[in-house]
């Protein structure tokens, strides 16, 4: 501080010193925005509660695979006693491997991601209202937009945060299951079934792109928690139930299932994992290409809406 050579010299007063470094491009702000969003959600106990619930499905698959491997080592026995229970390994192997598909096949990972549907929907409803809705309601948006970045970067940052959550619930646990299966059975699993990794990643990418765009569009449109949840659940639950009623109940054309967006991601995900039409239950399904077209159309519509709102002034709120 100051000139220390002379005791009587006038002190150099502290004053504002302008930043002399080089600013990074606005795109570099995307990750900090996403990171802030992630921290906002991770701070909430409700999120951890929902995540713990979603982990139940993961744990069922995780220990299911483990149990299957253990029972297969006992396959020679007619019955195995675990505590007070007498179990027939053959029957359990059949249930775990064939019925629940915990056999490390493409169906394992596709079904796992599909069963996460409810939790993904609920967590994303929370994420939408916290990440974007709150910014509008509490007027935090000007804080972002007063920095040298545009609304596009703001939405990219929020989208990145949403994408992380989607993958945290679906892709990452599915990859963990893949690794677990390989570690339990054989290293060959990793080389022989490497296409499954690509399939899981592709399925994750389909979910990430479509759900992120839909969530951003609905959150920017509705802003408040309850309307957002109503729309979000209508898209993923009402349409699903309606599709089931129309196709399974009233025996209409399977193409009616195309209104169920989660089912569409399931079909496209199955195709990513190289599964044939026979691997789908219920069997009356539209073709995966049709499902992909619907998802693509919805994503483009959401993107167009976002582009329109980005140009509009009122997004500033």
């Amino acid at each position, binding site marked *: 501080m100051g000139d220390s050579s002379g005791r009587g010299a006038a002190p150099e007063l502290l004053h504002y010193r302008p930043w002399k470094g080089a600013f990074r491009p606005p795109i570099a702000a995307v990750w900090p925005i996403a990171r802030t969003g992630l921290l906002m959600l991770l701070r909430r106990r409700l999120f951890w509660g929902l995540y713990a619930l979603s982990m139940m499905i993961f744990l069922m698959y995780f220990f299911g695979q483990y149990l299957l491997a253990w029972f297969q080592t006992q396959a020679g026995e007619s019955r195995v006693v675990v505590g007070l229970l007498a179990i027939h390994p053959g029957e359990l192997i059949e249930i775990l491997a064939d019925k629940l598909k915990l056999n490390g096949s493409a169906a394992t990972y596709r079904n796992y991601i599909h069963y996460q549907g*409810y939790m993904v929907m609920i967590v994303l409803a929370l994420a939408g209202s916290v990440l974007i809705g709150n910014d509008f309601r509490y007027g935090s948006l000007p804080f972002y937009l007063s920095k040298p970045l545009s609304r596009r970067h703001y939405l990219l940052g929020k989208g990145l945060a949403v994408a992380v959550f989607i993958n945290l619930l679906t892709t990452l646990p599915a990859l963990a299951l893949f690794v677990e299966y390989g570690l339990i059975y054989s290293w060959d699993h990793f080389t022989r079934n490497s296409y499954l990794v690509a399939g899981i990643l592709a399925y994750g990418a389909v979910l990430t792109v479509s759900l992120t765009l839909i969530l951003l569009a609905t959150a920017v449109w509705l802003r408040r928690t*309850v309307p957002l949840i109503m729309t979000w659940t*209508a898209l993923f639950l*009402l349409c699903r139930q309606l599709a089931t009623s129309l196709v399974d109940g*009233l*025996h209409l054309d399977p193409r009616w299932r195309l209104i169920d967006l989660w089912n569409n991601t399931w079909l496209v995900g199955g195709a990513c994992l190289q599964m044939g039409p026979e691997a789908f239950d219920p069997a009356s399904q539209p073709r995966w290409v049709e499902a992909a077209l619907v998802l693509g159309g919805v994503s483009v519509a959401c993107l167009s809406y976002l582009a329109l709102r980005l140009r509009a002034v009122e997004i500033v709120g």
Partner: protein
Amino acid sequence: MALIQQPRPTAAPQTSLLRAWWFLVLLSWRRQARARQMVWIALGLLAFTTAMTAVATAADLWHRPRFRQLAVADQMMLDALVPGSPAQAVADATFGAAGVAVLTDQSAAQVFARWVVAAIFLGFLLPLWSLSFATEAIGGDREQNSLIWLLARPLPRPMVYLAKFVALLPWTVGLNMGGFALVCAAAGRPGLTALRLFWPAVLCATLAFAALFQLMGAAFRRPAIVAIGYSFFLEIILGNMPGVMKRVSIGFYAHCMMLEAADRHGIQIDRPNVYWPVDGTTAIIVLLTTTVTLLVMGMVVFSRTQYHDSV
């Protein structure tokens, strides 16, 4: 020095708690209507469901599934039972005209009850509409930081909570019952049968859900998320659990009321030996008791909770 008297409570003689309470009921009811986005989405969902139902009715889809099963044995029979077809006479001759009419009506009502009333209305629309309005009753004021204006007034907190609940009822009951009537009307005869049979189940479920979700609004900071987690995760999981575990869900009792009403009419919506229902009277008692219990719980919670974030 003489003491001055205590300042007199000037407001007391002219004020009435009951009058304030009733005004709060009206105010809350009006303010629910201000949540226009929510109302419009609710109406949009109703319009969508009604339109789909009307399309299904126009295509005579309610009769198809039952007769498709019959057609496994005899395709001609299916043809014969399509109203207005030339083979109708053959069917009439085979079963007798009255018998066919009864079979057709029951079949259609059963299909409508199972796939629209139980799956879509009770399974989705009713909880969603109830949670949307009920979580907003207290939760909306919390979210908008306007709860302070109610809590600063001399109304006891249980009365505030009760007023919010009473104000909520026209919306939830109106939307659920009115929406149910509209969807049933769009389904034609089977719909009217379903309306006559199932309106008590819809009403009781509405009351119980409204009380539950308003309680969530008083207890949680993000009641809508908690409510949606409960409705579409726990209700579905618990409601489909084997054995008696499902009896902790509200939907189970509404479903039991439906089953009994349908059974009296000769319709079977679900297999009793698998579903293990309780009788209709028990279901009504449980739902009404649950409503009152949840309401009292809500009053207690609201009376004791300090809303730091909203004041």
